[in-house]
Structures are given as structure tokens and as C-alpha cells.
């Protein structure tokens, strides 16, 4: 049981690092696409609900989901950065091995970039969420134009 969990963790580690680096960026992109697309389409059709569900809480749920993913990605990046930045020989550290040191530095920079961008993207999703709560859902919908 413990050996299986450890093997699973070791196998997942590099993918977790990738999640920490790009997860929040992808969450923000999807948040922008889904929320903007949904609001624009529904408001354009003259409605304020999707299949009977009011638009505003629905957008709020999407904000919550994407914000959770983004924050999780940021936390993973932060933990990975802390671990890589302070890694020692005892926990598979880098003493006496130039290539391992180089790889660890690369991974640490990736994690740091993921942490920084994660903070930025999470803030952007959060402010987008505040806008959803404060403003009427169809307030920002653009006017109908003809060709």
C-alpha cells in the first residue's frame, strides 16, 4: 500500500510540476472563454438563464471551479519550488552531481515561474468573479450590429 502510493507519487511528480507551471494559465484561459462565451451567447439571445438556471450564479460557479484549479496549481508550484530550492543530498539532492544540479535548478525556475504566474492568474480570475457578483450578468454585453 505504502510502496504503491510512493511509486504513484514518484511517477506523478514531473506532471505535478507541469500542472504547477501551466495549470493556472490554462484555468484563466478557460475561465475567460467559458464565462465570456456563455454570457455573450445567453445575453445576445435576450435571456438571462441557461436551461432554467439563472446566468449569474452559473457564472459564479464557473468562477469558483476555475479559481480552485488556479489556486491549486499555484500551491503545487509553491510547494515544488520550496522543495527544489532547499533540496539536500539526503532527499535526493544535488551534491557532487553537476547534471542533477542543473536539472534541479531548471525545475526550480519552472516552479518559481509557475508560482508567480499562478498568483497573477488567480488574482485575475478572482477579480473577474467579483465583477460577476457585483454587476448584472448582461451589463457588459455589446450591442447588436448588422453587417
Amino acid at each position: 500500500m505504502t510502496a504503491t502510493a510512493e511509486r504513484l507519487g514518484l511517477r506523478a511528480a514531473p506532471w505535478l510540476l507541469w500542472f504547477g507551471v501551466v495549470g493556472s494559465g490554462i484555468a484563466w484561459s478557460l475561465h475567460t472563454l467559458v464565462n465570456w462565451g456563455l454570457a455573450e451567447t445567453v445575453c445576445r439571445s435576450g435571456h438571462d438563464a441557461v436551461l432554467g438556471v439563472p446566468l449569474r450564479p452559473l457564472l459564479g460557479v464557473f468562477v469558483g471551479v476555475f479559481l480552485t484549479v488556479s489556486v491549486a496549481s499555484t500551491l503545487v508550484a509553491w510547494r515544488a519550488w520550496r522543495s527544489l530550492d532547499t533540496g539536500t543530498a539526503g532527499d535526493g539532492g544535488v551534491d557532487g552531481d553537476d547534471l542533477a544540479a542543473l536539472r534541479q535548478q531548471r525545475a526550480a525556475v519552472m516552479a518559481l515561474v509557475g508560482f508567480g504566474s499562478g498568483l497573477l492568474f488567480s488574482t485575475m480570475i478572482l477579480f473577474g468573479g467579483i465583477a460577476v457578483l457585483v454587476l448584472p450578468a448582461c451589463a457588459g454585453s455589446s450591442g447588436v450590429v448588422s453587417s
Partner: protein
Amino acid sequence: MTAATTATAAAMRPSALRREVPAGRRAGWWGMVLFLVTDLALFAALLAAYFYLRFVTSEQWPPGDISEPKLLKAWIMTGLLLGSSVPLVFADLGIKKGSRARLLAGGILTVLLGLAFLYVQYREFTEKLREFSPSTNAYGSAFFTITGFHGLHVIAGVLALSFVLLAAATGRITRSHHALVRIVALYWHTVGAVWVVIFASLYLAAQL
């Protein structure tokens, strides 16, 4: 200690985190990945602009007197471009096993299918230009910009593949030096995948 805690502790070990995934890729391959990410973002922006125009247009779509896009040529183009990826995979796997003949055969077939795609697109453009042009309305601008921009990518891909074939014919691509094939193949497969999205957005979705 629970299984989840053990897995997390193992995953956060520096020796596990610093493992390279995907492993063994050259700098050129990563360069192509980064280029394609920015390129895909540009296509995404163009398609977002197209859908925005569609949603804010009050009349029918396509607007004005423009008829719905016909699907026959687009289906043929889709078949040609997706089909062209198959011989390229064959070529890539061939040179990995040291077969230059497979690389040349697969590469030539891919180039021919790419050229056939460009010919059908040229015929498609000629037909469309009789009906509308990029300056007719916003739909015309978006249609020709997106498909034309993709066509430029196919031209670039055909040129890159021709360069690979030339290098292979002169013996500069071997079993131990074939990174260029994989990098160009990555580009070509991505251009094919982008076409599927364009086809679905500009041709199929316009019928809805």
C-alpha cells in the same frame, strides 16, 4: 501515514520533481513547441474574433448575400491534410529504424498531399472571390484571413518538408541524426489539427 500523504511526500521530493518529462527532447523540439503555442494563440484569437462577429451580427450568418459555405471542397481539403500526416509518421518511424527510403517515400507523399491541399484551397478561393472578397464585409475579412493564414502555414510546411527531403537525399539525415524530421513533423501535424478546428468553425458551424 495515509496513502495520499505518502504519495504527496514522494511527489515533492527534489529527485522526483527534477525528472525531465517528456525526456530526451532536443532544444529545437522545445523551440518548436513554444513557437506552436504562440501560433495556436494567434489562431485562437482569430477564431474568437470570428465567433464574436457571428454573435453580434443580427441578421443571418453568413451575412448579406453570401451563401452558406459548400462542404465538398472543404471535406476534400480535410481528407488531404489529415491523410498527409500518415505517410509522415511512416517516414518518421522509418528513419528511426535507419530506412532512408521510407523517409523519402513518406516525405514525398506528404509534400504531394500538401500541394494538393493548396491546389484545392486555390480553387476554393477562386470560387469564393466571385461571390465575396475580404473587403465585402466582416465575414469576408475573417474568412479569408483565417483560411489564408492557415494556407501560409501549409506553404511553410511544404517548404520545410522539401528541405528535409533535400537533406535526406544528400545523406545529412541519418538514423542517429533525425531530430529535424521529428521537429518538422510536429509542426505539420499541428497545422493539420488546426485545420480541423477551422473546418468545424468556418464550414460546419456555419450550417447551424
